[in-house]
């Protein structure tokens, strides 16, 4: 395998509603920033790939419109995934393995605020048996939380503690949307949104964008003093039908982690894409993280959750801690689909 590293990362603040800028206006300054930060000239980018969803915008080919922000002239080699940008990053990593190019640009954008997000997400479900019932995204997460509670794998108190801890950590993150000190007792005294989930167990609705520059081998070493080397990256998916799955476990995360070399590795930092509080419990178990791992120093998806971006944010936040020397080894996780259906795991490491 060819050594590939994240050499720069940039993000917009996550906002409940970005009123002034459209997607292109959000992206253009961000892409300029991430490219400048990499120290690599724009013309050296050999591959560009993005993650987004037209369903969020309610507009066909919104990802093609977003290409205006890239400056696709002379014509560029480009790709897109109708998924979180973390999966676009995986495609860029594969593309760099071909060996003929050294630099790739990855970006993701999502305006979750333009429609009713919990209903928009129904359109990703099985169109014959599940979607016609309109089970919204929060209700499906509640189904999973109920299964977890009934199995004795977590408690509502533990869920409130996870929410409070993530949002307390987010105080250090100027890009986060929901941050501050929350009292666990007060959280537990609040009413259910969709039982057993309370409002604090759910992610905020966020508009935002993020971008990453990947570089291979010596090009990465030349660009930055401490590249965040991708030591392993893999993603796995579980069946579409919710009834087929054991919602209390995430075997796809465990398998991806094994393939990425995360299981058994000692890591300083883990950025987990757990939009709902109880999902952090499932992911911690699936990744077998030790007690000394700093989980979600950024505040995670409970503090900022731009759809199609929040997974790439995990990779970027983990990488930035290696780039600036705060961490030696980090694991990043991204998810897609209802109830953690598809999961990506990435192990990153700095040079000693």
């Amino acid at each position: 395998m060819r050594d590939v590293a994240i050499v720069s990362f940039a993000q917009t603040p996550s906002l409940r509603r970005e009123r002034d800028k459209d997607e292109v206006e959000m992206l253009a300054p961000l892409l300029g920033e991430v490219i400048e930060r990499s120290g690599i000239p724009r013309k050296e980018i050999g591959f560009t790939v993005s993650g987004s969803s037209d369903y969020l915008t309610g507009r066909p080919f919104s990802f093609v419109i977003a290409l205006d922000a890239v400056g696709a002239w002379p014509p560029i080699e480009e790709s897109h995934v109708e998924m979180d940008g973390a999966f676009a990053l995986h495609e860029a990593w594969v593309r760099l393995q071909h060996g003929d190019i050294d630099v790739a640009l990855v970006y993701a954008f999502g305006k979750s605020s333009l429609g009713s997000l919990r209903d928009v997400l129904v359109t990703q479900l099985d169109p014959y048996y599940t979607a016609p019932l309109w089970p919204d995204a929060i209700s499906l997460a509640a189904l999973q939380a109920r299964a977890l509670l009934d199995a004795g794998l977590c408690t509502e108190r533990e869920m409130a503690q996870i929410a409070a801890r993530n949002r307390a950590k987010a105080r250090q993150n100027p890009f986060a949307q929901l941050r501050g000190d929350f009292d666990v007792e007060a959280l537990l005294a609040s009413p259910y949104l969709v039982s057993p989930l309370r409002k604090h167990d759910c992610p905020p609705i966020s508009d935002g964008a993020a971008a990453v520059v990947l570089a291979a081998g010596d090009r990465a070493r030349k660009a930055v003093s401490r590249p965040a080397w991708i030591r392993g990256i893999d993603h796995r998916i579980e069946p579409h039908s919710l009834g087929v799955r054991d919602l209390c476990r995430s075997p796809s995360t465990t398998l991806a982690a094994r393939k990425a070399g995360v299981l058994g590795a000692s890591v300083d930092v883990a950025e987990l894409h757990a939009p709902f509080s109880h999902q952090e419990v499932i992911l911690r178990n699936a990744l077998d993280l030790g007690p000394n791992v700093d989980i979600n120093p950024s505040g995670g998806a409970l503090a900022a959750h731009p759809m199609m971006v929040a997974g790439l944010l995990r990779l970027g936040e983990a990488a930035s801690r290696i780039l600036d020397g705060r961490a030696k080894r980090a694991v990043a996780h991204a998810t897609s689909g209802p109830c953690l259906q598809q999961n990506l795991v990435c192990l990153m490491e700095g040079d000693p």
Partner: protein
Amino acid sequence: MSEPVRRIKAPVRLAFEINAGHALTGFLRAIAEGRFLGQRCVSCHKVYVPPRGVCPTCGLLLGEEVPVADTGTLTTFCTVNVPYEGQTMKLPYVYGSILLDGADIPFPHLVQGLPVPEVRMGLRLKAVWAPPAERKPTMESILWFSPTGEPDAPFASYQEHL
């Protein structure tokens, strides 16, 4: 075996709000006032109408706003002969690319006011606006473009804009 199921009913209805962004908002507000507003690229200096926030060839945020005339030249066109649902124009009609005077990018709109066989490249056109009271921040505030009666523009004047 009875008849196989060939259809199911699964209605989907999702409502979205538009966020026009800075550039398009400025353009649409100007349209409601009966004028065109472009924006110039800070790098290649091309004037985009409508502006879309960035220059798609340079990938940079657009710079200064530039007023653009409501007259222009037809660079290319097609004739629509096929009826479709929701159609409001009488067939056949012409849909054209119009290079507004002062803009670098042609702009698509309807062409009316002359027999279809007489529509040609280089035709000089002027916007026909909806009455002021009916103008809104929407493209429907421009009804269509019709001939100014000026001589046709020479090919060389628009060949870089096809």
